[in-house]
């Protein structure tokens, strides 16, 4: 197959003359529409002598755009890929580019979906006028969320994500201890407490000066690859974590 007209034009895409030669030579590759491409690259139709500065500037910008696209793709890839030699070596550059705007995480139900449900309850305490401490009943916060989700075609984030994610984030930052090891952990503890305070206040009618959370971890009945399910004996596998009493502040901070 012949070379396309515009390739052989001296001066390449720069000169308007090339447009004419393309048009006269224009018997070649129709698939790629070289003609129209050439016309556009050479300048606006009908405008003679496109300024050289403009053309060079434009090409530079196109190149920069492409370079940015490529950089973005590579850095985002390294951000979401499992940690590896490259992403560790360049973690500073990756983080500088990706955070905060392009942070993402697509470990959707992966590597494995959660195999437990967490049932979170709260109770409050106050000192009565006679000096005795009054402790409330446990109030099941998760049950309220479950009830809100049930039979709703579009459940609210407040039911599906608020308490659930507050707890998983707390767990991530604290591990098995309830001492907050970092500033972020303290913030998460306040957030979790504020959620519980708001919900118990709604439920019990007024806020109390102290609050305590209890988290029961209920495993989902296991399903083996051969299709058998473990006999349901939930009371055995329950893991209960009792958090310390937290002081409630009026402004939530």
């Amino acid at each position, binding site marked *: *197959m012949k070379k*396309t007209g515009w390739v052989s034009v001296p001066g*390449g*895409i720069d000169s308007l003359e090339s447009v004419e030669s393309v048009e006269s030579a224009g018997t070649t590759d129709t698939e*790629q529409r070289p003609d129209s*491409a050439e016309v*556009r690259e050479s*300048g*606006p139709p*009908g*405008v003679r002598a496109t300024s050289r500065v*403009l053309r060079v500037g434009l090409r530079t910008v196109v190149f920069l*755009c492409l370079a940015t*696209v490529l950089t973005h*793709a590579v850095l985002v890839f390294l951000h979401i890929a*499992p940690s590896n030699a490259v992403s560790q070596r360049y973690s500073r550059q990756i983080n500088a580019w990706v*955070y*905060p705007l392009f*942070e*993402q*995480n*697509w*470990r*959707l*139900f*992966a*590597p*494995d*979906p959660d*195999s437990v449900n967490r049932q979170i309850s709260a109770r409050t305490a106050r000192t009565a006028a006679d000096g005795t401490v009054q402790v409330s009943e446990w109030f099941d916060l*998760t049950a309220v969320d*479950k009830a809100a*989700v*049930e*039979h*709703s*075609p*579009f459940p609210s*984030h*407040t*039911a*599906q*994500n*608020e308490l659930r*994610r*507050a707890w998983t*984030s707390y767990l991530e*930052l604290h591990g098995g201890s309830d001492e907050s090891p970092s500033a972020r952990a303290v*913030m998460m503890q*306040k*957030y979790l407490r*504020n*959620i519980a305070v*708001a919900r118990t206040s709604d439920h019990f009618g007024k806020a109390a000066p102290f609050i305590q959370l209890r988290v029961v971890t209920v495993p989902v*009945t296991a*399903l*083996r*690859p051969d299709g058998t399910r473990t006999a349901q004996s939930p009371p055995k596998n329950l893991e209960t974590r009792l958090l310390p009493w937290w002081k409630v502040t009026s*402004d939530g*901070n």
Partner: protein
Amino acid sequence: MATERLSVRDRSRRLYALLTERPLSLYATAVLRIGYGLLYLGFLLREFPHRDEIWGPGSPWTPELAAELYDQTGWASILALSDSRTYFELCYALAVVVSALFALGWRTRAMSVLFALLVASFHSRSIFMTDGGDNLILLMAFYLVLTACGRRWSLDARRAARHGAAGDGRTTAPTGQLRWARTTLVTVLHNCGLIVIAVQVCFLYGSAGLYKVQGGTWGGGTALHYVLNLDLFRPWPALSQIADEQTVLLAITGYATVLLQVAFPFVLFGRLKYPVLTMLLGMHIGIAVLMGLPLFSGAMIVADLIFLPDRFYLALGHLCRRLARRELRPTSPSKPASPSPEGPPTTALLPQQGGPDGPVKSGLHASSSPSRPPS
């Protein structure tokens, strides 16, 4: 074929021409604009009763906590400018209006910037309540700013057509070099945005698939059993229960999910993409209904729509117009069927996708390492 013999120089010229010649996939980007605009509008309205709890000054993630986090992460939010309830209500109303106008394509470029700003502000204010769907909408809101997503199926396009500019909005009377340079720049930016969107969706699926490959339950075909038993993702317990009993079907669906996700980036350049996109659509509809994640699924479905070619959307538009006309004729003329092509396709296609699962784990903070499968 000629392409095989092209030199590097020729190829780079063609690439240059492809990037600068004309904006590609104008319909697909318009569909994304409409899709994400409507999704966010739906989300805002759905959370109307909870708006203060999620984004407002009354949130358990107090304005002080949010401000502290912004300091640590470098985020910003227009919601952080004031703790006043009135100010928040104004921002909320603005977000509703902007989402609607963005979907309609009114002054699209300006609206796309505002939309991105508002989505980012609302997202970061409630960062610990977000999930994968919110995350995807945020990213797409940024990327759409780059695109000329208002050229088709928009109020802008309608206005341009009225003014006789052949529907293209910008191409009225070339007035010299600067005009030409500007058109080229807009085109390049659009095409780059398009590339970024496509790459982003490929990364999303690829990474979702590859992480699943590491999991023992996906390998054993039992993962969906656990998914179906998460308390907060069972809006229809009876349905979930029935699905959960189909052990064999669950295993097949689980494998299909992983395969589709891993294969996704590789099927896009052939006809295989149509069956794959259809299957993903089915999966996302399943997730939307069974798990009560319509926003997440909707965000994924809209993202998939970027891969359908303009001729598909044109044909769809023709079909809708013809149907609308046929419907109009025989039935009573009282039906105000406005046969605008954009309505039908999006509403019909909106509901579905979702990768299975959930939330962005780490929110704003960089911590959190992926849990590893037992080796």
